[in-house]
């Protein structure tokens, strides 16, 4: 019986001019956003790949000099956009595109596209994800608001009931029918996305496809959730007009107000520290030690004693290695741990702030799908942090590789012996590896849980619909 109703619903939807009008609107918006996103992605990645190569070439073609001084010329880490960012741009506009890596200092990410845009961009960007998250529900509302109430108003609900269909079967059948019609519409969209996905070395194809599959499942569930809620509201409304008003109100709340409210509440509850205060703390830690009782000159003296003991000599000049460089290796490790500790504190604050958004996903299905979508497309905060960490690891690696080389091949006090490009070639180029899906599911499970929660809630509501009046 459910399939009969569903089949009838699909057939009448496909015959309905309204459906095709809405489909045309949706597909036009999606097509437009795909073209825009595709261009942005291709241009950004081409520029960043070129810049990354230029940075590497500049590194390799330095004039011969002291290795530590060479390290000061630094390297850049450019973040390539992920293949699936074609679909969901996520936080990419706000996270910055590159970071300068140099000894002694951990620099910030710079040049976020949003900072260079006008305030208009804050109303939301036209990306395929935005269209599916915010516009699709609106169209679904226009399609489904009369699902039950219109049958009731037209007197056909009574007819259906006398045909032997239970109210539950009618509701489930209708929801299934709407879902199938929407699936019919969205499958080609995801087909196009699959074909258009760029191949990238840092994102293995198997992982991208697994993410893609989950993405399709997520949006399929999202459409099911919205349709389920629409049918439930329609059944509980006396008139179709009332159902439409209620659903539009919910859309406004869930799509626009709650996301902002949750995020704002997060930043009110946990204040972001001042950059200046944070920099002051880092300086203090470097100087006085992480525990505050280990000043840098004392650290250096201790290190010297240990090195002298290791080489069984009494004076720095007698050492076969360059102690200055060894001290720099240790200092670099130390300052990096300082940066990591303080950055960790800041990230904890950010995580607390973001927790509001993640938890609001259990109140708001739009937030749920947004969180999962950004996670799967690699454009959420967690995966940006992963890039930051890898860039920071690379900074420590190349600076200390240079320091180590200097330590092994020069004597203490020697800052002038020059080494050529052969030494610079020791350093492997920066090679970012996207986190794997498994890592993602372990670290950010709440978004997926929220989506599942909504699927269950929507299903239960639909399943337990009681006939109010025929």
């Amino acid at each position, binding site marked *: 019986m459910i399939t009969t109703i569903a089949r009838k619903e699909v057939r009448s939807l496909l015959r309905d001019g309204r459906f095709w009008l809405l489909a045309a609107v949706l597909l036009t918006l999606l097509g437009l956003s795909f073209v825009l996103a595709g261009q942005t992605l291709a241009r950004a990645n081409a520029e960043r790949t070129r810049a990354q190569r230029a940075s590497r070439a500049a590194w390799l073609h330095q004039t011969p000099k002291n290795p530590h001084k060479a390290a*000061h*010329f*630094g390297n850049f880490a450019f973040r390539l956009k992920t293949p699936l960012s074609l679909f969901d741009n*996520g*936080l990419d*506009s*706000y*996270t910055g595109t590159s970071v*300068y890596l140099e000894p002694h*200092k951990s*620099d*910030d990410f*710079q040049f*976020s596209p*949003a*900072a260079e845009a*006008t*305030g208009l961009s*804050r*109303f939301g960007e036209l990306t395929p994800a935005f269209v599916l998250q915010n516009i699709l529900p609106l169209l679904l509302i226009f399609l489904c608001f009369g699902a039950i109430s219109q049958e009731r108003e037209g007197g056909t609900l009574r007819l259906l009931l006398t045909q032997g269909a239970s109210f539950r079967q009618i509701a489930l059948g209708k929801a299934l029918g709407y879902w199938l019609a929407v699936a019919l519409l969205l499958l080609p969209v995801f087909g196009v996305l699959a074909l258009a996905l760029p191949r990238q070395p840092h994102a293995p194809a198997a992982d991208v496809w697994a993410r893609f599959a989950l993405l399709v499942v997520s949006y399929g569930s999202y459409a099911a959730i919205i349709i389920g809620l629409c049918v439930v509201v329609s059944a509980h409304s006396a008139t179709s*007009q009332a159902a439409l*008003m209620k659903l*539009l*109100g919910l859309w*406004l709340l869930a799509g*626009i*107000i709650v*996301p*902002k*409210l*949750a*995020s*704002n509440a*997060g*930043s*009110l509850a946990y*204040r*972001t*520290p*001042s*950059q*200046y*205060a*944070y*920099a*002051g703390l880092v300086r203090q830690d470097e100087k006085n030690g992480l525990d505050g009782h280990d000043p840098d000159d004392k650290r250096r003296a201790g290190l010297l004693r240990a090195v002298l003991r290791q080489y069984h000599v009494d004076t720095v000049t007698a050492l076969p290695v360059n102690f200055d460089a060894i001290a720099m290796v240790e200092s670099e490790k130390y300052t990096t741990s300082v940066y990591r500790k303080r950055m960790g504190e*800041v990230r904890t*604050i*950010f995580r607390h*702030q*973001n927790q509001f*958004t993640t938890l609001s996903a259990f109140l708001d299905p739009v937030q749920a799908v947004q969180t999962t979508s950004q996670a799967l497309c690699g454009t*959420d*905060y967690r995966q*940006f942090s992963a890039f930051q960490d890898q860039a920071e690891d690379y900074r420590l690696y190349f600076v200390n590789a240079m320091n180590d080389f200097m330590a092994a091949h020069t004597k203490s006090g020697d800052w002038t012996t020059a080494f050529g490009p052969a030494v610079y070639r020791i350093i492997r180029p920066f090679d970012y590896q996207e986190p794997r899906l498994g890592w993602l599911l372990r670290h950010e499970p709440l978004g997926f849980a929220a989506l599942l929660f909504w699927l269950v809630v929507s299903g239960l509501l639909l399943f337990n619909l009681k006939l109010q009046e025929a």
Partner: protein
Amino acid sequence: MNGLTFSTLLAFDWRQLRRGRSFWLLTGLLLAIGGYAALYGRGEVREQHQKIALLRHDIDSSMAVVQARLRKDDTTAAWHYDDFLFALHSNPPDGLAALAFGQRDLHKFAVSITIGSYFYNRYAGGYENKTLSGELANPQQQFAGHLDVSFVLVFLLPLYFILLSYNVLSSEQEGGILGKWVKNEAARAAEEKLKFLTEKDRPLPGLLEPDLLAFARAAKAADRPAPPIGFDARAYYQPEQVGLSLTAYAAQREAERQLVVRVQEPVGESQATGRADALQRSLISKGATVSVSHTVDAQGNRVGELTVQYSVQQPRSEVKEISFMLDWAAKQPGYQVQEREADRAQRQAPGQQDAQREQARTPGKSQGLSYGGR
């Protein structure tokens, strides 16, 4: 539309609006969000001010150190103080930024300038060059954006008006009034509208078509005479054209009478042709409104049908004349007067009164002058 009409409409719609639950719900919601938005914007502005104040405080204490040392010994080389010499460069938010926070969270608003600071050339090489990093910011917060007053005004206020007017207009037009007003449970609304319109001789506004019909039904429900179909209510409702109060109008409608006179014009009788038209002419000359339509009956005879309209409010003499004419017609063969008994009695009353008065003056002639009887 004149000012009075406009204010009448405004007063009525406000009355209707404030009675609805959705109006208060929506307004409450908008005000709550607006209040929150104002608080949020204030909080963000205050936070930036605090961060600037913190920087200023540190720079001041740094300068205090330099001053103290210089007072003790002013022969030290200047570069010894490099680490203590800062200048604050800030762009504090003004009060209005709380209403529209815009892009302030994306840009630097306070930097301490010192030796080797480059604002634009961030990546200038060399150990001495210090980069000026931006504020710490959570990209996810930036992505969500602000819920400030400008957002409420730009985004939510239009939606508020759409929802409000959607409810008001559509519910009134789409059968709200037409369907429900006649029903008993909604009669209260109809009565109130009527009462509102009639109180203090308020001139009636030029209403829209559905309202006109609704008004007619409401008037009927309230036991007032309704305008006949085809009656140009618009002209009536235009106060500057007619200026009638509803009571006056109701009285006028009540005074109107209508009857039908059928006049047979047999084919064979030459003098019979044109009887109907003759009667029409004479009735019109007496002050009645008459229209004639001609048909042919089963025997092939012409039949003229006169629809006669007059009002008992017309001058007494006119009513009397019309009545004489109708009575005369009623007595002629081939003439048929169809009217209500009560109407007939009413229109004959002036003539009878005059006759009685005449009879009282000349009692001898009473017999001959009586009419309408026998």
